């Protein structure tokens, strides 16, 4: 409560000041009376961001345009990712903080009470209240007419949905009988769990509220099947394709697809201000130009983007660096936030019985991991700048320990061969080892062929494993086919990246290290089994994997941070010892091109979709243009 009062006082002190600084883009609208002044647009208690030396940033001024390049009109979702306004959100140290919410209470992960900011408004000026949560819960998520095929798994704790209550117009509550530690991270997710929507606008597309004739006319106009499809189309908030849909994000889309140029303009009702009371975002407009992905490095190098990380890769660094002076930008190297840049996944559920037997011997997995010369791969492909490591969390994570990264990741072909001999895999006269059933060890590695880096790594691994007597073949298939083949168990080994979230804290779910998902390449059948509660897939018949699932269940029920940390540690230890996935290099670098005109972009950062949202946790709304008038 004291916190609340302090904030209120703070707000009072700069409310008068704020009215003086109106964004240049909006000044005319305000003076002509079409838009209320900023003091009336902000919530009564805005979120105050500390943008000064204490956070290695400088307070900025409003105005300017950031140009970005994307490869696909669907990439407009990146603005929702970069903008990162969430009910609760992570800061750059991955601590959870209320953002759109004024505050929240978490009672033993069972009862979550969410408090909204009084006076908070959608980008069209309509109030943001508990009604928006009620509409989403009753009329969208649980309305049988919407035919959504059940609630998202995150809503189910112990298989049961929560009880939803509206306490007052600014307070809502979700109550589960058993703990649901996944709820808050899902709200803070890069792709957030939608538990609220712009009800005032969306009711006109809902049969319960809309005039049937008007609704039928809209359905016909949009050429969709029924009003449900219309509702879904109009309500798409993550990929903001509907320019009329009100939003709480910092920038509002003005362009309806299809288009090759999308313009996003500042949300006049955005809820964050800097410590001087200047309403964020600093930058007036984002312009997203669509170009062929292979041409994006070239266009970026010629200065056509003010802020670019997507579609650039480490191999473009030298080229981008050459254009730095000429085109007035800087190239920074951010660390890729995945657990492993490239990792190999032996399929423990493969339908080939002999190979399955071999893969399930931990000595085999350790041997092939020991047989990879990671240092050469690092030198050849990453100029030695990446880290050689097993597949685990990144060194930046509080859960990292040196022995996790070092587990079976040093190059030792003699030890590897000794292990393979010990298993009893004999060599044929031409040097290839033989499977127990007498076939030569022709190991087919599946790849999506999307990155040349994977192909290069495989080429180097192929020659390393030749010394172990294992002949590697690569099969490339399109991503969807690749995934369905893995899930069907018809693959032996696949190549992909390590875990998505490489730097988790104990609060993050350890599900990527546990059989929980049908798309997990090392144990798709077990993942299916766990995620469908035993109705599909295969029952786990391998003790260490069973142990992982038990630990995961314990984590879900754990109530203290210490317990969660301990469970995480055990899960990582089992993964390190069992080498379920074979990590090759980690902490690889990706170039981020930043215009010299653009301030407050961190020099070093972690590039990751979830939970970082790329620029999301680095608060893109605090970036500002030094020279707002000049385009370049």
């Amino acid at each position, binding site marked *: 409560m004291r916190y609340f009062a302090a904030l209120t006082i703070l707000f009072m002190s700069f409310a008068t000041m704020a009215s003086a600084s109106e964004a240049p883009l909006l000044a005319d609208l305000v003076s002509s009376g079409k838009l209320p002044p900023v003091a009336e647009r902000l919530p009564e208690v805005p979120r105050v961001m500390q943008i000064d030396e204490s956070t290695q940033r400088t307070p900025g001024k409003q105005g300017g345009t950031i140009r970005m390049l994307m490869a696909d009109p669907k990439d407009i979702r990146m603005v929702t990712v970069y903008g990162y306004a969430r009910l609760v959100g992570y800061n750059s140290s991955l601590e959870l903080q209320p953002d759109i919410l004024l505050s929240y209470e978490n009672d033993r992960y069972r009862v979550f009470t969410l408090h909204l900011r009084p006076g908070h408004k959608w980008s069209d000026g309509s109030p943001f209240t508990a009604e928006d949560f009620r509409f989403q819960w009753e009329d969208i998520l649980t309305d049988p007419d919407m035919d959504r095929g059940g609630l998202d798994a995150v809503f189910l704790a112990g298989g049961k949905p929560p009880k939803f209550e509206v306490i007052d117009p600014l307070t809502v509550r979700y109550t589960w009988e058993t703990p649901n530690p996944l709820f808050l991270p899902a709200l803070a997710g890069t792709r957030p769990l939608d538990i609220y929507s712009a009800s005032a606008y969306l009711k006109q597309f809902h049969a319960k509220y809309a005039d049937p004739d008007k609704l039928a006319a809209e359905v016909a106009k949009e050429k969709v099947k029924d009003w449900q499809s219309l509702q879904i189309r109009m309500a798409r908030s993550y990929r903001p394709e509907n320019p009329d849909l009100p939003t709480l994000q910092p920038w509002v889309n003005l362009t309806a697809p299809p288009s090759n140029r999308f313009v996003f303009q500042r949300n006049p009702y955005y809820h964050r201000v800097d410590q001087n009371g200047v309403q964020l975002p600093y930058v007036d407009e984002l312009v997203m130009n669509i170009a062929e992905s*292979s041409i994006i490095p070239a266009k970026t190098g010629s200065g056509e983007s003010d802020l670019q990380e997507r579609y650039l890769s480490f*191999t473009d660094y030298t*080229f981008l660096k050459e254009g730095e002076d000429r085109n007035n930008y800087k190239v920074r190297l951010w660390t890729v936030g995945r657990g492993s840049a490239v990792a190999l996944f032996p399929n423990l559920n493969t339908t080939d019985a002999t190979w399955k037997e071999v893969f399930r011997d931990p000595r085999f997995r350790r041997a092939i991991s020991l047989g990879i010369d990671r240092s*050469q791969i690092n030198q050849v492909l990453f100029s030695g700048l990446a880290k050689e490591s097993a597949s685990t969390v990144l060194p930046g994570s509080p859960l990292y320990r040196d022995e996790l990264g070092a587990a079976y990741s040093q190059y030792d072909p003699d030890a590897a061969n000794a292990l393979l001999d010990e298993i009893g895999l004999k060599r044929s006269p031409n040097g290839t080892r033989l499977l127990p059933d007498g076939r030569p060890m022709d190991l*087919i590695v599946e790849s999506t062929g999307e990155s040349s880096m994977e192909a290069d790594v495989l080429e180097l691994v192929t020659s390393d494993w030749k010394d172990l007597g294992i002949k590697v073949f690569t099969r490339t298939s399109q991503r969807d086919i690749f995934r369905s083949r893995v899930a069907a168990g018809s693959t032996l080994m696949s190549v992909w990246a390590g875990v998505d979230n490489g730097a988790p804290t104990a609060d993050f779910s350890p599900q990527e290290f546990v059989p929980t998902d049908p798309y997990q390449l090392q144990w798709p059948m077990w993942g299916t089994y766990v995620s469908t509660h035993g109705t599909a897939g295969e029952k786990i018949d391998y003790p260490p994997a069973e142990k992982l699932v038990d630990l995961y269940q314990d984590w879900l029920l754990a109530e203290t941070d210490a317990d969660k940390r301990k469970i995480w540690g055990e899960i990582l230890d089992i993964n390190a010892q069992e080498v379920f996935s074979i990590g090759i290099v980690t902490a690889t670098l990706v170039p981020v091109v930043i215009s010299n005109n653009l301030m407050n972009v961190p020099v070093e950062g972690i590039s990751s979709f979830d939970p970082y949202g790329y620029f999301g946790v680095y608060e893109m709304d605090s970036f500002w243009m030094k020279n707002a008038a000049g385009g370049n």
Partner: protein
Amino acid sequence: MTLPQNATSLPHTVTDAPFDPEAIYHYTDAQKALFEASQLRLMWWKFRRHKPALVSAIFLGLLYMSILVSEVLAPYNLHSRHSDSIYAPPQSLHLFHNGELRAPFVYGYDFKLNMENLKREYVPNTEKIQTIRWFCSGDDYDFWGVIPATFHIACPAEGGSLFLLGTDRLGRDVLSRIIYGARISLTIGLLGVGVSLVLGIVIGGMAGYYGGLFDVISQRLIEVIQSIPSIPLWLALAAILPITWSPIFVYFGITVILGLLDWTGLARTVRSKLLALREEDYVSAAQVMGASSFRIVSRHLIPGFASHLIATATIAIPTMILGETTLSFLGLGLRAPITSWGVLLTEAQNINAVALYPWLLWPVLPVILVVLAYNFLGDGLRDAADPYK
């Protein structure tokens, strides 16, 4: 007819003097050779006069001979990597050092990784004179994939390097890869073209000559085959061919199957040509004289449009070579570790290659030359084979 009663036979004499058929017009030896020459000989004479075609034929001949001994010609093995020479620029060949004539040599590189922009910088060091060794023992290889050997025509100096066209991202010699790549790029299309040519002539020929039921059936079959979209078919084929096959086999398999599907256009052309030609008087004459159908088609009809067939075939081969590049780009054709010019170009297909490592684009040159040469050759052959000129 009987003679009149009082008629006497006319006097006549038979001269003993030798008959000279050229008494009125005397043919020179050259003219005689021309008139008596076989069809093939006539074609060769005409072809010889088409200089670009002749040069192209010699050029292609040499290239095809080179693929017999690629391993020996290439200074390095196809797969040998040099981790210390990644993205090394081409080393130029020198004959003079300090104004003094020497055996051909290259200057060795001093390598430095520029940590500022992560560029690999190579500076020729004039102290390091690396004389090329000739008829030497170098990288080991399996000749034609079978016989282990180490003999090369040219090798780098002991401990030195010889990257006349630079190296790629794994430090592999581009020149060696182009030489090896020729083996696949030049042969991959021949089989498919051959299959489609034979099928097209036989089926189209029979349909055109006999007509009737065979014609109807074959035409409907052609329509069915032409309606099958080729890209999904390729995808399916690429998926079902066993992966433990050598990827070349897989690709050969696919080209043959493509050839099996690709004959339809040619068959239609052959059919329509034959429909027109079979009404000609000389065909009726041949039929009256009792020539068999096979003889009529092969001796009288096919030569009538051989020029067309030759043009089709010679244009189909470079189309196959370009097609290999296209398909590799789509991820359907050849893929590393198989090395063809198309694969090499696919690997060079980004802004880095153009801006920083332009030598990776060298495989363009043989592709252009071969395609041009085939076109000139086809032009010359068509002119030579055309009986109406």
